[in-house]
């Protein structure tokens, strides 16, 4: 199958959407499909994978309440058209199609069957409502809408109407599979290890909640170790800590992927005290895939990742007492942690790329079948008037 993927954000800048597209493209290429990715780039000299075509330099613009690196304008437009023409794709898969960037332009110019994936859960309604009459005819070209989470699906329903099918982000779970090795973070019954991952100075990651719960935890199990992996200013946070908590806490700073995996594999308990801003709990999937028992705040995204018969425990967002109580309960109950670990390993498999990409492929096939069975689209009929209705490829 010839698949065209369009990324609205600069491909050489790290981000969830970019990683998702990269992994999806590489998964399909490894299985013999022909895949092309169209994306803006930040650095024109950046070393891009062979399957990526640049549609121009991304420009920082204020949109939807934050600065995004997007691309637009006539140069982009003609590059989008050329890429579509040269690609001859069987299916076009656009990401964030209502973001004013490459995806929207590809949607406008496309004649292929279109699949769209919605990632964000925080589209500002004002912009969307204002632009709706403009966007509507374009969004009607989309044959299948995918949302990466329940929240993203809610956004689609509110702002575009209709529904979206949920396919979560994929994780390469095999990379995290437990190997039984003892590392410097392996705990013992007397000295259990709690793991935290995420920026330490970003309040939404919730490190402050966990640190506030530590005195109670140390009162009951004095040798507990808290291992914190994530970038941020350590000195500033450490200086404010109770000396007992300070000596129980190891700040690793930003860690390599290998260390992150090793930490999750060895920890007795992975704690995710996030207070908001998570639309998809990928870090929870990684912890579960590594066999770490999970204790997380009850954010909507996290509860969704843990599933209907939860493969992890939760506590109310920001509730320090409940967090400390549950940590102690779990640290004292190895059988329960064993059970959570087994449930987590199983749950994580449903987020593996094998499952996720299989579903995306099922969407492609369904959409292509629908397009093959459609009568000829009016815009493909020859004639003067039809040219006025939709901009034809290359006309822009």
């Amino acid at each position, binding site marked *: 199958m010839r698949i065209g993927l369009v990324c609205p954000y600069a491909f050489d800048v790290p981000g969830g959407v970019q990683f998702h597209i990269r992994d999806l493209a590489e998964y399909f290429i490894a299985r013999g499909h022909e895949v092309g990715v169209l994306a803006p780039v930040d650095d024109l000299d950046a070393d891009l994978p062979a399957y990526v075509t640049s549609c121009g330099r991304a420009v920082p613009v204020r949109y939807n309440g934050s600065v995004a690196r997007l691309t637009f304008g006539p140069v982009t437009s003609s590059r989008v058209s050329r890429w579509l023409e040269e690609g001859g794709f069987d299916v076009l898969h656009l990401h964030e199609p209502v973001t004013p960037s490459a995806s929207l332009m590809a949607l406008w110019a496309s004649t292929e069957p279109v699949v769209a994936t919605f990632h964000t859960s925080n589209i500002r309604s004002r912009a969307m409502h204002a632009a709706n009459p403009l966007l509507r005819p374009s969004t009607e070209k989309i044959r299948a809408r995918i949302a990466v989470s329940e929240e993203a699906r809610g956004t689609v329903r509110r702002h575009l109407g209709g529904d979206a*099918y949920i396919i979560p982000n994929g994780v390469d779970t095999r990379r995290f599979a437990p190997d039984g090795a003892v590392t410097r973070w392996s705990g013992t019954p007397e000295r259990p290890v709690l793991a935290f991952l995420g920026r330490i100075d970003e309040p939404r990651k919730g490190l402050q909640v966990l640190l506030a719960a530590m005195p109670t935890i140390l009162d009951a199990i004095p040798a507990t170790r808290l291992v914190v992996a994530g970038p941020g200013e350590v000195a500033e946070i450490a200086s404010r800590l109770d000396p007992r908590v300070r000596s129980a806490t190891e700040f690793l700073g930003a860690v390599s992927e290998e260390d992150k995996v090793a930490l999750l594999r060895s920890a007795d308990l992975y704690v995710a005290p996030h207070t908001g801003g998570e639309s998809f709990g990928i870090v929870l999937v990684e912890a579960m895939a590594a066999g770490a028992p999970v204790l997380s705040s009850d954010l909507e995204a996290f509860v969704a990742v843990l599933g209907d018969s939860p493969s992890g425990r939760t506590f109310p967002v920001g509730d320090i007492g409940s967090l400390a109580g549950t940590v102690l309960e779990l640290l004292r109950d190895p059988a329960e942690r064993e059970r959570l670990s087994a449930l987590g390993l199983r749950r994580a498999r449903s987020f593996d790329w094998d499952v996720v990409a299989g579903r995306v492929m099922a969407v492609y096939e369904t959409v292509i079948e*629908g397009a093959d069975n459609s009568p000829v689209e009016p815009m493909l009929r020859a004639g003067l008037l039809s040219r006025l*209705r939709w901009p034809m490829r290359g006309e822009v």
Partner: protein
Amino acid sequence: MDVLQVTTMIALVLLAVAWYLSYSASRLDRLHAKVEGAVSALDAQLVRRAEATLELATSGSMDPATSLLLGDAASEALERHTHHPLSHDLLDGQTFAGREGTETDLTETLRAALPEEAVTALRRDPGSPGAVALGRVEASALRVQLARRFHNDAVREVRRVRAKGVVRLFRLAGHAALPQVVDFDDDLPPAVVD
């Protein structure tokens, strides 16, 4: 204003109106085409699901009682498909021919016939005819879900455009019947999902 100017103005306005009507009609035409494609994709997936279920029933990997139940539900669905085919012009009085009931029955039978133990047993021997058929049931059931959702989204878009005043006033939809959403239980058996 001289006559020429007035005539030009009127001509321009008429041209604009004509363009807008033509644009709206083609937009609606495109949406109708999308619904037609989606409904035939759904139809094809439903047939595949029933055939895969029949294959599972006759694979010899299930107990006779379960096989009989599955075979019965699958043949019922296939029979409805052959006896009440969707008309050639899908928008000409198109409804889903009352097949929702039989498809829901098939979904429920699959759920009852495939509890966790049965799925685990089938998957134990990945090469066996039962496991292969189960794989097909899974794949087609997932595609039924997708096709039905995509179809219903397309139907909602058509209905929204057709509710517009200009579309109704100028009868831009022609004789095409108003497409209906298709509603039936298409949940995958829970044991198959994980």
